[in-house]
């Protein structure tokens, strides 16, 4: 290749003898590169579909709004072999063993776990089983359960009256007819008022990539804090105590 006749001689790299072929080959490499890139990109173009953690399985039945339990009707009745029977129908015939609250011959479904209050006639009117009785001997209908409970659970009753304990359905508007504050026995089973432990609904899985593995030292802070340890021990002791008490009863 000869020196070129430009005014400023370019000392370009191409001015090497025998490089013409390379020049052409390399010159085409740019378009070729683009075409190769285009092919790669086309091949990858659908490679972006995301997969997500599946939706949480929740039973729709768990999400129906209703009182926690059906309260006893007023006047009271029970179902015997599927048909409603009023209480006095039996109780006027059979003498009930009211002393033995814990082991009933009838009403096998009732588990009486109301602490020391373990006698039927503490609450049920012994004369008329379709009514309840207060401590002063007054007979009240089933609809007035709160008055009965209030005899012992004064603070809770006070809170329930104010609306700071218990559940309100329908409306938040105090003057609304739709608002309904549930009675004690629409949430608590009077024979076993403490709520049973329940199965929790599925936990969060908001990470698209799936849950991260459980943190290796989750109890960090609890194990080392003396306060925490003390509370745990106290807890363990309490649980043991209550089980032994229960056994004694």
């Amino acid at each position, binding site marked *: 290749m000869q020196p070129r006749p430009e005014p400023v001689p370019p000392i370009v*790299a191409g001015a090497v003898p025998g490089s013409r072929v390379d020049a052409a080959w390399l010159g085409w490499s740019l378009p070729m590169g*683009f075409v190769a890139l285009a092919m790669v990109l086309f091949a990858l173009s659908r490679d972006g579909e995301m997969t997500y953690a599946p939706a949480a399985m929740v039973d729709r039945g768990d999400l129906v709004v209703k009182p926690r339990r059906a309260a006893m009707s007023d006047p009271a009745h029970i179902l015997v072999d599927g048909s409603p029977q009023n209480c006095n129908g039996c109780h006027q015939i059979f003498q009930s063993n009211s*002393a033995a609250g814990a082991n009933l011959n009838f009403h096998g479904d009732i588990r009486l776990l109301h602490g020391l209050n373990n006698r039927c006639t503490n609450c049920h009117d012994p004369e008329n089983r379709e009514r309840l009785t207060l401590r002063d001997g007054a007979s009240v209908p089933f609809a007035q359960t709160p008055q009965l409970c209030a005899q012992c659970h*004064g603070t809770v009753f006070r809170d329930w009256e104010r609306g700071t304990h218990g559940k309100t359905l329908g409306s*938040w508007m105090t003057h609304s007819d739709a608002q309904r504050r549930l009675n004690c026995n629409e949430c608590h089973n009077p024979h076993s008022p403490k709520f049973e432990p*329940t199965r*929790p609904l599925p*936990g969060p899985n908001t990470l698209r990539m799936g849950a991260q593995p459980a943190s290796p030292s989750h109890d960090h802070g*609890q194990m080392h804090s003396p306060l925490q340890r003390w509370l745990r021990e106290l807890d363990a002791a309490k649980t043991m105590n209550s089980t032994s008490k229960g056994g004694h009863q």
Partner: protein
Amino acid sequence: MTDIRIWEGPSKNHSGSESEQTRRSFLRTGAAAVGGMAALAAALSPLRELSSDDVPNFDEFLQKHYKAMTPEEMEAALERIRKKVEDRYAVRPHLRDVKPMEGVEFVYALNLSRCIGCRKCVHACVAENNQSRSPEIQYIRVIEMPRGSLDVEKGNHHYDHPTVPDPSHFYMPVQCHQCANPPCVKVCPVEATWQEPDGITVIDYDWCIGCRYCEAACPYWARRFNFAKPSLPREQLNPNMSYLSNRPRERGVMEKCHFCLHRTREGRMPACVEICPTGSRKFGNVLDPKSEVSEILKTKRVFVLKEDVGTLPRFFYYFDERYPNTLDPEAVAIAERLKAEEGDAYGCLPGAAGPRKDFVASSTPEWWNGART
């Protein structure tokens, strides 16, 4: 080194015929340009996957901010959304723009002594508010906390016991606190989120640009972003919806708890309150002195989460006082003493009720014996 200049001026020729050189050079330039365009087209090719449903149409593009719309424009926007929902879910929604009520400021209270951590509120909320099921978006997070601490960092979000409550923990659900001084509203660059007169902080889903600054600003981790197109099975769509609350969202926008405003502004309870099996959740109008939340604020010791950040939440937590267990002699003794000293300190019923000494003091109370006969 080799000269592979593509753009060569015609006057600049190497050895060989000038025309041939020019032709080759031109050819190469053209090829490079075509190749470049092909590569660009290939790079853009994923856009083919965009469905017409994803791309805003002209009207949507021109839709104004919620506060700037006239009633007619709002009706047009609502109709557009109704149609879109119908196209997508084959359900004609009951969609409207529910306005706040006069003289109402909503407040929420949550009783930590009662919450059992069953997560029903979480899923009732999802069902009510048409959140994306997969990827999952939930407004409520229930944290299982060890007793003796209110530090959320010690909590567990992913507790998975066969049954709850776990005896050594308590449960703290967290959702949008509808702050009176909301940091999320402050930071939004386009005013897509604001506080309504009834205290609810809302989002115009059609205005949000998805910068997620509000998500970074929220101290309660209450805001959620639609990282992907929300997926919601047709049969699970809740057709009762409003513009600012639970209408289906688009990809790329923020959302969060809005106290179920399509329900609460019509007098109903939020979904999480209604489903709560323990009555831990309380909701009402704080301007009404008779409302449950007013009573709670008056009579309970309430606290708010992260009070130090100055957000003034409208979401209060409270614990019950320890109710004197009438069967616990010690507690009753204390209650009796306090009652004598302070009157109604422990709320024992005036007159008729109140724990009787003999109820617990004697192993066989008199009325008890009477009951046996």
